[in-house]
Structures are given as C-alpha cells and as structure tokens.
C-alpha cells in the first residue's frame, strides 16, 4: 500500500504502482460488466471506469490506517485502498468468501483491513460516517485521516452541510472528495445543482480545491499535501474532482442517448482517458516502455480473469448464516 510514511521507494515505483492500480480498477470493472451481461451476477452494479485517477490519486496518498468511505460506485475506491480481486468478485457474486460474506454485494463492499469503511447505497449516506471517523481519530489522539468520497449528485443532501459545519468547527481530519462526473443518474448535474460546489464548502471556512480528476499525478500531489495538513490538524478540506463515467449510471443503463451524447462519451474516452494519458507520460518520461506497460496490463488481466473463475466456482454462504451478524457479539462474561 502506498504510504506517505514509508516513502523510501523511488518515484518510479510509485508511478508504476499508480498505473497498475488504475489498470486493476479498469480490469475489475470490465469483468464485472461482463458478468452482468452474461447474467452471472445477481442484481445491478455501477461502473467506476473512467474515474480511476480519482480513487488512485487519493488512496495512494493514504496509509492503511487512514479511512475512506465509499459510494454505490465503489469498486474503484475499494481496489485503490488495497482490496484483493478474489474477495471482491466473491462479494459481487454473493459468495461466502466475499469481503462481507455475500451479505453486502457490490453496493456495500467494505474492507476493514485496509480502512475502507464501506460502499453505501444511500446517496450521501456516508458523509456522517466519514466525519464521525475523523472525530473518533481526534478524540482518541490518532493521526489517521478520513477521505469521504461522494458524487456531485450527493452534494444535494442536506447532511453534507450539517457535517461540514461540525467538521469545520472542530477542525476534523476529514477530506470531502466530490467526484464530479457531470451526471446524477440520468440528469445533468448543472440542472440540479445551484451555484458552485467549492463556494459551498468555503462558506463554512473550509479550504476548497478543484483538480482535473483525469490526471492521476495532479490528484495525487494535491492529496499528499492535504492529507499531510489534515494530519497536523489543519483540516477539513474539500476537493472537487472533474471526471467522467464511461458506462451508464449502472450496467443496465445502455440506451442513454436521451441524456448524454455518444460524441461526448467518445471525447472523454479518447482524449481524456486517465490510463492512456498516464501511460503515454510514463513512456515519454522514459519511466517504462510500452512493452513493459503491456506486460503489466496483461498480468492484471490474467489476475482478474483467474479471480472471476475462482469466484464463479466458490460456494454460497450456508443458509444458517442468514441470521448471523444481526447484532455484534458481546464479550463473554
């Protein structure tokens, strides 16, 4: 896992790890989409493809002790924060070896071991949780930072304004990261968001930043700075990351001409792709050759495919698990 702490590695390693993590997210999503299209996955899921630089740029600035809260579009955050393909695919298929023993599925994946407090199917539902995690860190004298990921649509939830107020009053180590992909479901965000998002955070005295969410280096540089400052008690912060989702709102949203044009999608995919552009930069800078990057992509692809086969063959939880985990056990007296 990337760390600001053990930064003894060379930049080259950091760059290649960022590239690899973005490729892993894309590859995970391509497989998840395929599972849906071939009717092997129960329910629906929301693809993170196109937004990889956001999750990776930010999570690469975090340690395992730092926390994140995620969204319905959460696979990218989960991978970026260190999760393994096998347990993730198992969870998507409702299998016992999934991160949540099949109880959560795509929209509720949590990975406790890497500080991922969970995806969330309630838009804006994690804003309180993230702020509470930051409060807890402060009260307990820890230095971990929490990043709250949410979409542009979620900024319409009143909860955000309540928790920003408290976070600002109490100088909590939380970073609100808004993934502005331009749409909330089938509606352009311009039509449902008044004024400017950064100004909303600034109204609470919260420092706000805008960054190109397709540029992993720009995102990472800003995140490194803000995470370090939040650790010193200079938070909270707000970042608006301009990005784009390649697929529909969910995997079943295939005919979407009525709200978004094919041309617009093509421009983002061809000119603004975070993986293609970062790959080109890596080769230009002589950090890796195109052959090396191709090898890396092939290896990730093989990994993902192996994890899918594993998950497809894995067992469902035993039905006796259905009423397990309703309450947390108390320590034996």
């Amino acid at each position, binding site marked *: 896992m990337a760390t600001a702490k053990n930064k003894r590695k060379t930049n080259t390693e950091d760059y290649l790890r960022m590239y690899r993590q973005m490729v892993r997210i894309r590859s995970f999503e391509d497989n998840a989409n395929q599972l849906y299209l071939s009717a092997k996955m129960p329910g*629906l899921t929301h693809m993170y493809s196109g937004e990889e630089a956001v999750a990776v740029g930010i999570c690469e600035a975090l340690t395992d002790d730092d926390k994140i809260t995620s969204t319905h579009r959460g696979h990218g955050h989960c991978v970026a924060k260190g999760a393994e393909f096998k347990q993730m695919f198992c969870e998507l298929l*409702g299998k016992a070896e999934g991160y949540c023993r099949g109880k959560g599925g795509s929209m509720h994946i949590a990975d406790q071991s890497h500080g991922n407090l969970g995806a969330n199917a*309630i838009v804006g539902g994690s804003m309180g949780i993230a702020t509470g995690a930051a409060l807890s860190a402060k009260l307990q004298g820890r230095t971990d930072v929490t990043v709250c990921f949410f979409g542009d649509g979620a900024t319409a*939830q*009143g909860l955000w304004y309540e928790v920003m107020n408290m976070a600002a009053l109490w100088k909590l180590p939380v970073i609100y990261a808004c993934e502005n992909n331009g749409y*909330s479901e089938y509606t352009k965000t311009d039509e*449902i968001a008044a004024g400017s998002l950064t100004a909303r955070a600034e109204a609470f005295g919260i420092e706000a930043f805008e960054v190109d969410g397709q540029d992993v280096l720009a995102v990472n540089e800003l995140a490194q700075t803000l995470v370090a400052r939040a650790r010193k008690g200079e938070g909270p912060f707000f970042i608006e990351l301009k990005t784009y989702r390649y697929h529909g709102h969910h995997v079943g949203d295939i005919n979407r001409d009525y709200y978004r044009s094919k041309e617009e999608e093509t421009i983002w995919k061809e000119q603004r792709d975070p993986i293609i552009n970062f790959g080109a930069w890596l080769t230009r800078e002589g950090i890796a050759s195109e052959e090396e990057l191709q090898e890396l992509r092939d290896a990730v692809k093989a990994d993902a495919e192996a994890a899918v086969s594993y998950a497809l063959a894995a067992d469902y939880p035993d039905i006796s698990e259905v009423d397990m985990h309703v309450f947390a056990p108390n320590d034996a007296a």
Partner: protein
Amino acid sequence: MREITLSKAVNEAIAEEMRRDPSIFLMGEDVAEAGTPFKVLSGLVEEFGTERIIDTPISEPGFMGLAVGAAMTGSRPIVDLMFGDFLFLVMDQLCNQAAKTHYMSGGKLSVPLVLRTNMGATRRSAAQHSQSLHALVAHIPGLKVAMPSSAYEAKGLMKTAIRDNSPVVIFEDKLMYNDKAPVPEEEYLIPFGEAAVLREGSDITLVGTSSMVQVALAAAETLAAEGISAEVIDPRTIVPLDEETILTSVRKTSRAMVIDEGHQSYGVSAEIASRITEKAFYYLDAPVVRMGAMDVPVPFSPALEDITVPTAEGVAAMARHLVRGEARDVA
C-alpha cells in the same frame, strides 16, 4: 377486458388525475425525461411539461418538506420516492409535519399529498434497496397507507389517494411493475378501507398484502388440490383497515394467517393478527399465525435472500398444520 402492467396502471391513474385537476403536480428524482428508473412515469413530462413533472436534486427531506408546504397552500403534490428505503430520510417531514398538521391545527390546515414509493425484496439489491417499510408509516396516526396487489388495485387506489385530503403513502411492489392484470378502460376508483375477497373458502382465511396476495393465492391453489379450502383477502389499504371483512371471514373459517412482506416483528401482520385474536377469539380453532420477512437486514446473496421472504410453499405448509390440527410449534 384489456390487460395492462402495474406500471402502466399507475401512469394512467396519475395522468387522468392530472388532466382533471390542474393543482396536481409531481416531483422526485429522475421523474421527468427518465420517467423514473422503473420507467413508471414515462410520457408524463411530454404531456404535462416540466412545470408539473419536476425533477428534483437528490434532496429527499427537502422535497418532502416542499410537498407538505405546497399541499398546505392549495397544491396537490405527488411525491415520487425512488425506493421505499429512502423513507428513513423523509420521516420528519412526513411523520412530524404532514401527518400531524391537520390535527394540530384543529382541522384548519390540511395536507393533501401522495407519497408514492415501493417495497419488496428478492431483486438482489441488498439491505438498503429492498425493505418493506409500510408498518413504520402505518404506525403514525394521520397517514393513510395503500398497498396495491395488482395493476387493477394500483390504478384505483392511486386515483383515490390523489383525491384524498389527507397525506397518503402508497407502496408499489417493485417486482410487480411488469405484471399484467385486467384493468377497465373506463374510469373507476377503489375506496379506501374496503378489502377484497379474492377467493372464497371455508377452512382458513389467508390475509395477504401487496405481492403477498399472489403468494396467498398460490398457496390456496395448492391447498385446494389437497382438499383444504382457503379464503384469500386483500385489505388493499392497511390504514384505514377493513376489519369487518376480515373478521367475517375468520368467523366462518375459524383459522387465519396474515402474510406481509414487512419484517415479522412489530409489523402489519402482527397488527391484523392481534385484531383477529381480540375480536374473533371465540370463533378460533387455531392460533392466528403471522408470516413476514425474517427479522434480518435483507442479505445480498441470492442463497440467503430467497429464504427471508414468505413463499407459497411456506404458507401452504403452515396452513396445512393449522387446518389439520397437527401439533407444531409456530416459529
């Protein structure tokens, strides 16, 4: 008679009422061009425009509050809440404000609004998109609660809800949107507080709500083949509840089960079962049994989710025990 889907029935009801009464407007997330994720409202914005079919930001407590205020001042709003699970976000405006305003104002103010939302598990949507929360609102005095069990009910109840001068919450089962049923072309309304006896029988009364009506009917069919005659009743609205039709049936059959997709504990099935026990006790030959969803958050895994909701087989098995008087502990 023509057959249409439940989705179309809701759409027709809203369109007809909006044509009749210009004070009606509808608002919610992705209701206009997208016509909701379930496409229930497709076409309405083309006819009524964005002034009356209003796309909102993702601000459920906010637009619920707007609807309460609009309803108090001459409009008749229909609020579209995309998933029943989001009721938890709007509870203050719905239960502290809408439900109580008429009473608290000594009858001076009223809140004629409809909140249409949904319920029902087994769509593999996990714990925050699968709940059946009608018992929560039915508990609050001042709210009426309708639970259509087919396209026919969906249309008739929606029209009545829109004309009602009190706040009404209407729960559609999201698995039934594409189910077809005969629906007359000509206008009709289904009055609140009138249960439907969907199948007559003499051995046991099965009271079912929403999609559990289909489960009860399927169980009755199985039982009939075994010589057990089940009567199936759909209350259609749980507030107000047509107690009399249910009690009349139980006095005849002497046995009853109540099947509802809310969690079994502290739920609608408990309320109806308790009324039967209180008011028809001396007619009963067996305990009145509740069948609801298991008391667990709805799990994602298909292997687990499917065992959390009542099934026709489960209902038939329990009914068999009750009718044949075989000793069996009720879980």
